[in-house]
Structures are given as structure tokens and as C-alpha cells.
């Protein structure tokens, strides 16, 4: 068994899809997969619903401005104020492509490890309660230790 690691830095819908397609594919090839979510990538792990937590004014503003979870992400190109993302989602549905939500659920079910970067969480004021269940929290050393064991490492 080999191991794949990914740094998911981007919070764009298309890039998140690519990351989770690779993760599901690798897990289906019998590989261990670790995904480390940092900066904008953290938004992929946010719960769709609002969670009441203590925050400073700036943290609250960050929270309002950033997408809450996979359903709210935007395309990196041709977003056109949300029209592009809407069209992409409906085309993908029509063509029977897994939604980001489904890809995330199946990745977790297949044992893909999702790790949220605690430093990014602190900067952006994102609390544990706002992120989905079943993930780990760690820093760069944990990620590097995983990457050392892997034979493929991607920055997305």
C-alpha cells in the first residue's frame, strides 16, 4: 500500500472537486490518503448551517464573507457572479458527476484522512464547532510527517 498526500489551499469549487476526485480514486486503488486543509481550503470543511460560537468582530466578518461548505463554493473561472457555478453544478448533476458533498462523504467512508490546519483556523476565526465531524486538527509537522511517508504530494 502506498500513500498520497494533498494540501488543499484553494476554496474554489473546481479545485476542491479535483482534490476529492483524486482522493476517492487513490483510496479506490488501495492507497492511504491524507488531505491537509489550509487557508481558503478550510471553507470546504465548514458546515452548511450557521453555528453559534464566540467570535471577535473581525472573525465574524471573515465568517460572513467566506463560503460555508461545499454547496457555497464558487468556480475559480467563469463564476460570473454565481451563474457559472450554478450552471456547472446543474451540468454535473445532469451528467451524473458526483457532487462535492458526495465525494467528501465517500472519501471519509473510505478512510481518507482530513486534517484542518489549526493556524489557518485561528487566523480566519474558524472554530472546531463550525467544521464537519470526523476530521483531525493539526499543524505543518503532522502534514510533513504524512508527506514523508507518501509517494505523491499535491498542492491544490
Amino acid at each position: 500500500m502506498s500513500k498520497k498526500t494533498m494540501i488543499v489551499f484553494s476554496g474554489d469549487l473546481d479545485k476542491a472537486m479535483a482534490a476529492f476526485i483524486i482522493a476517492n480514486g487513490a483510496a479506490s486503488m488501495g492507497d492511504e490518503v491524507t488531505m491537509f486543509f489550509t487557508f481558503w481550503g478550510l471553507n470546504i470543511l465548514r458546515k452548511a448551517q450557521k453555528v453559534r460560537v464566540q467570535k471577535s468582530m473581525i472573525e465574524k466578518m471573515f465568517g460572513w464573507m467566506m463560503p460555508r461548505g461545499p454547496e457555497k463554493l464558487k468556480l475559480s473561472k467563469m463564476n460570473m457572479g454565481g451563474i457559472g457555478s450554478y450552471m456547472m453544478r446543474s451540468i454535473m448533476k445532469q451528467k451524473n458527476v458526483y457532487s462535492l458533498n458526495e465525494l467528501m462523504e465517500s472519501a471519509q467512508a473510505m478512510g481518507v484522512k482530513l486534517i484542518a490546519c489549526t493556524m489557518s483556523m485561528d487566523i480566519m476565526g474558524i472554530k472546531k464547532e463550525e467544521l464537519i465531524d470526523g476530521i483531525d486538527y493539526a499543524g505543518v509537522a503532522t502534514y510533513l510527517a504524512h508527506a514523508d511517508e507518501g509517494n505523491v504530494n499535491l498542492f491544490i
Partner: protein
Amino acid sequence: MEERYINAKGLQCPGPIMKLFQEIKTMATGEKVKIEASDFGFSKDVEAWCKKTGNKLLSLEQSDNVITAIVEKA
């Protein structure tokens, strides 16, 4: 032993290999599974998947819009 069957038609990448992986996990060594997929990338993918996982690709056919592979669990 009866050959198993997976209908992966209409599924997009990585659906077919995910289905194949999940099915193979429940199979015994020497058991065979036939999988049909419509994603035309599956032809190369099933070869790569078998090479990587060590399972045996017994046959691979493409007709019209369907790719049919038979895989034996190693």
C-alpha cells in the same frame, strides 16, 4: 463460482473504479467480476487499477458506448 456483475454505466470518473474496489473487497481470491461502464476513460483506468492492485484483468472489450472488463481477484 458465479461471476459477479457491476453496472457502472452512467457513472463518471472515479465512480467505476470505486464500485470495482468496493466489490472486490467482498470477493474471495479467484472469484471473477464483470463490470460495464460508459465512461470511455475507464478502459485505461481499469488496466491501471488492475496493475496497481495486483488483480487480474481477464478481458477488456469496447463496443459502441460500453466498456466491459472482467477482473479476477488475486
